[in-house]
């Protein structure tokens, strides 16, 4: 009986400490993995930890679905003085996306990591992965502006290290580029937070939102917004601050590309949206502000310029990277509407893009593994030798294009509807036109992969191992499943949009 009781207490406390567990478990895991010298063991520990994360995040989402907002005082120090972890549907949604995509990336990882990274470095790579995961989850879970900065740095530094472990020396340059840009971004962000702290005397998001009302018409407050927006835009890779991204994605180890492409920029977007909607929206009328048209303009530029550039790329991973820049444009466009429909579209695309781009990078990773190259010309006729991989690539590509029945369509639907609702019907046409460019760049790969005679090298390649195919297939199935039954994903995104639109006022439990 006493065993039962203690079990019940333990279960209870897990539920109570969910927010901190999301950060603490991967952090401790990173320390453990750093001490192992066996790469298989390192992978296995990372996998166990990664598998636990979606469960924790899922439980958390379930909790906030019922309870509204969960506030967790770190170390028992009450907010706003201590660090508060504050979870609502919006960040629980992001936490779930990040943790699920991380798990898929790790399931997929083992074989490609063996290929890309020397044996003695593999445990380090998994350490960096866990640290990065810890940082990303931390940004999403925290309700404290400076704590978010700390996690931003944790995730960034580990990302630089992961990218630098790439296949050849170009990875070092790519990592260095990102290091410079990322550091500038983080600096700008912390400057903005510093100004806000000076003006309001608090770092707590909810508290800050309240206290900003007292200083609403002051210049430093707007300067802080500018610093934060530009700083985070660098991490988001919002056009034209995206220069670091294509090389980083193309030359990083395949596993890192899959992981980063489906998580890192998404978390940065979340943080920016949090600042704009939950903290600044009460004091700034974004509807009449010209800063919104700047975001709309940049989003459109991203959607078109980056897509055009994607059409000219010779390296398929770089092509997909430019496509990511364009897709980020969709998300920021949705966010800029300031309406429930637009925000829902942006947030649901956060998830949808993570799933489909994850799947696409997994396919290119598999081709890299077997062929040793993802240059378009080297992939001639690969559709015949790696039929499953290429079929998955094409299916995920269709989702990227946004044909009906895929998740890409669901995103486009919301965004176009939001355009008409806002009285800017022309934006709907712009969205469609830019997705037509996706037809071109995906189509180029299809033509090369299916209509050209295989080269000798291609003749010798074969499908990747089942361990890699399984997560690929699952993600592609998700692309279609959530395209036909989007009720759950869209409803969650809609609830998250509600959270942002109602501000931080919700009562914490």
């Amino acid at each position: 009986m006493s065993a039962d009781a203690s079990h019940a207490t333990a279960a209870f406390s897990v539920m109570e400490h969910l927010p901190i567990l999301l950060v603490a478990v991967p952090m401790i895991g990173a320390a453990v993995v750093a001490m192992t010298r066996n790469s298989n063991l390192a992978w296995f520990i990372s996998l166990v930890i990664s598998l636990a994360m979606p469960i924790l995040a899922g439980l958390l989402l379930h909790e906030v679905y019922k309870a509204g907002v969960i506030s967790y005082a770190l170390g028992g120090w009450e907010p706003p003085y201590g660090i508060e972890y504050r979870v609502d549907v919006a960040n629980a949604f992001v936490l779930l996306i990040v943790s699920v995509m991380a798990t898929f990336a790790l399931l997929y990882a083992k074989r490609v990591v063996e290929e890309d990274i020397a044996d003695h470095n593999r445990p380090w790579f998994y350490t960096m992965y866990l640290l990065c995961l810890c940082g990303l989850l931390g940004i999403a879970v925290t309700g404290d502006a400076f704590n978010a900065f700390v996690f931003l740095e944790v995730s960034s530094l580990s990302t630089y290290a992961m990218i630098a472990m790439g296949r050849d020396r170009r990875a070092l340059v790519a990592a260095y580029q990102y290091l410079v840009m990322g550091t500038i971004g983080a600096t700008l962000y912390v400057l903005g937070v510093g100004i806000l702290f000076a003006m309001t005397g608090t770092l707590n998001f909810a508290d800050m939102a309240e206290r900003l009302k007292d200083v609403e018409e002051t210049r430093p407050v707007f300067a802080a917004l500018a610093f934060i927006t530009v700083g985070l835009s660098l991490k988001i890779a919002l056009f034209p601050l995206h220069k670091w991204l294509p090389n980083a994605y193309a030359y990083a180890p395949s596993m890192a590309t899959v992981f980063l492409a489906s998580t890192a920029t998404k978390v940065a977007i979340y943080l920016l949206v949090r600042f704009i909607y939950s903290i600044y929206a009460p004091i700034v009328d974004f509807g009449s502000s010209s800063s919104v048209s700047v975001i709309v303009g940049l989003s459109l530029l991203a959607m078109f310029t980056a897509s055009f550039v994607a059409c000219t790329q010779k390296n398929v991973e770089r092509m997909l990277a430019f496509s990511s820049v364009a897709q980020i444009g969709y998300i920021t466009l949705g966010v800029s509407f300031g309406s429930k429909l637009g925000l829902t579209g942006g947030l649901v695309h956060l998830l949808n893009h993570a799933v489909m781009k994850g799947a696409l990078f997994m396919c290119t990773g598999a081709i890299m593994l077997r062929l040793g190259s993802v240059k378009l010309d080297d992939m001639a006729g690969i559709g015949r030798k790696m039929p499953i991989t290429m079929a998955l690539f094409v299916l995920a590509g269709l989702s990227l294009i946004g044909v009906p029945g895929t998740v890409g369509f669901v995103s486009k639907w919301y965004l176009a509807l939001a355009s008409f609702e806002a009285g800017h019907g022309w934006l709907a046409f712009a969205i469609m036109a830019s997705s037509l460019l996706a037809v071109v760049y995906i189509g180029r790969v299809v033509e090369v992969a299916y209509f050209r005679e295989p080269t000798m090298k291609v003749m010798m390649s074969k499908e990747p191992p089942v361990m890699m195919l399984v997560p690929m297939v699952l993600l592609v199935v998700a692309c279609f499943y959530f395209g036909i039954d989007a009720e759950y994903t869209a409803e969650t995104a809609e609830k998250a949009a509600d959270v942002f639109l109602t501000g931080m006022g919700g009562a914490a439990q």
Partner: protein
Amino acid sequence: MMTMDSLLLFTILLPLLAAVGILVFSRYPNMREGITIVTAIVLLFEVINVYDYFQGGQVPAVGPFQVLPGLEIAFNVEPLGMLFALIASILWIINSIYSIGYMRGNNEPRQTQFYICFAVSIFGVMGIAFSANLFTLFLFYEVLTLATYPLVTHKGNDDAKKGGRLYLLILLGTSMLLLLPAIIWTGFLAGTMDFTAGGILDGKASSGVLLVLMLLFMFGIGKAALMPFHFWLPAAMVAPTPVSALLHAVAVVKAGVFTVVKVIVYVFGIDLLKETGAGDWLLYAAGFTVIAASLVAIRQDNIKKRLAYSTVSQLSYVVLAAAILAPISMIGAAMHIAAHAVSKITLFFAAGSIYTAAHKTEVSQLNGIGWKMPITMAAFAVGALSMIGLPPTAGFLGKWFMLSGAVSTGQWFAVGVIVVSTMLNAGYFLPILYRAFLMKPDVEGDHGEAPLGILIAISATAIGTILLFLFPGVAFDLASKMVGL
């Protein structure tokens, strides 16, 4: 015994199941082709069952399955869709027999892929025919585009690649850039996307918006090949002949004009278009396409290209008939969908038959071929007469109703277009018959008729062209139901 609703669902899903079966038995060609034939026969049987329920006054329906709030997948039976499904499923059987003869006779590669894509295309057609709202229609419209792309590019050479590129870019381009925004806009304005008798847009939009929507819809439905978005159709002729025959003379293009009629009747509503004049321009756009495409057809020496431009022209007949906005011309539109289907598939079968037996692809090579391939060329003659619109062939009926509609509403432009184009039709079909039967062959060839499978198919559709003239009951009945007569 299945309920009528599950029967409808099964009818739609059956071709998809067949695709899976074809994949499983890809190593056993006879089993594989057996699956195609059996599925086609069962499908026709199912469609006829659905038709029986429908004639009995019941409306089988499936769904709605909610994708998101406001976005639903739903099917039901409606007269025009019923007619489309009947045509497609009857012709699929004949075309399958023809395909097997053609693909084996010409030793085509990648036949499994061919039959799978074909089955998926038919799945798309069934989905389109029974769709109950704009989103469902659009979903299957795109399925059809994507499933036919591998068929168009089947040969895998540079020509196929180029043709496929044009095919995909124009069809996806128009549907994504024009049709989809129109659908979303309509849904936003009307609050529903269900096909409803009398339309859903009445009182929901200004006449200016209606005009823009009409433009978006009509040009967005690229499969109807309204100029200037018709280039994909000639480009699609690089496909193997069975594909051109069933898909690019029947399934894909009919899906286009079917969508046009559906949008005019069930989204805008005939009365609304009459009141606001938002669709007046369509008459001229369609009339222009009818004449211009015929003029281009006259200049084509390649048989399939000439047939393709003839299709472009004939499709705009349907659009023209719908744009006249008279109930009787709507019946003409529906009848012409059926008539053109059986006639044009006959003509393509004949072209494929000539290619298989004599390896000839140009009109100028056909001198005297009528006496070497009498069955093929007799069938060709029936198809050609139907295209011109002469009795006793099906083509006469559609034109007759269209003309009646145009005359009764005083649309003299439409009357003029039909008269002039009839002469042009004669101008590009009769010379072929003249060459085939009345001119002496240039060189004595030693070829005879095409293989038996091809001849069976070709005779069946030629006879069908005449039968539809003699017994237009089912088609006429469904067409009248559509306009509520």
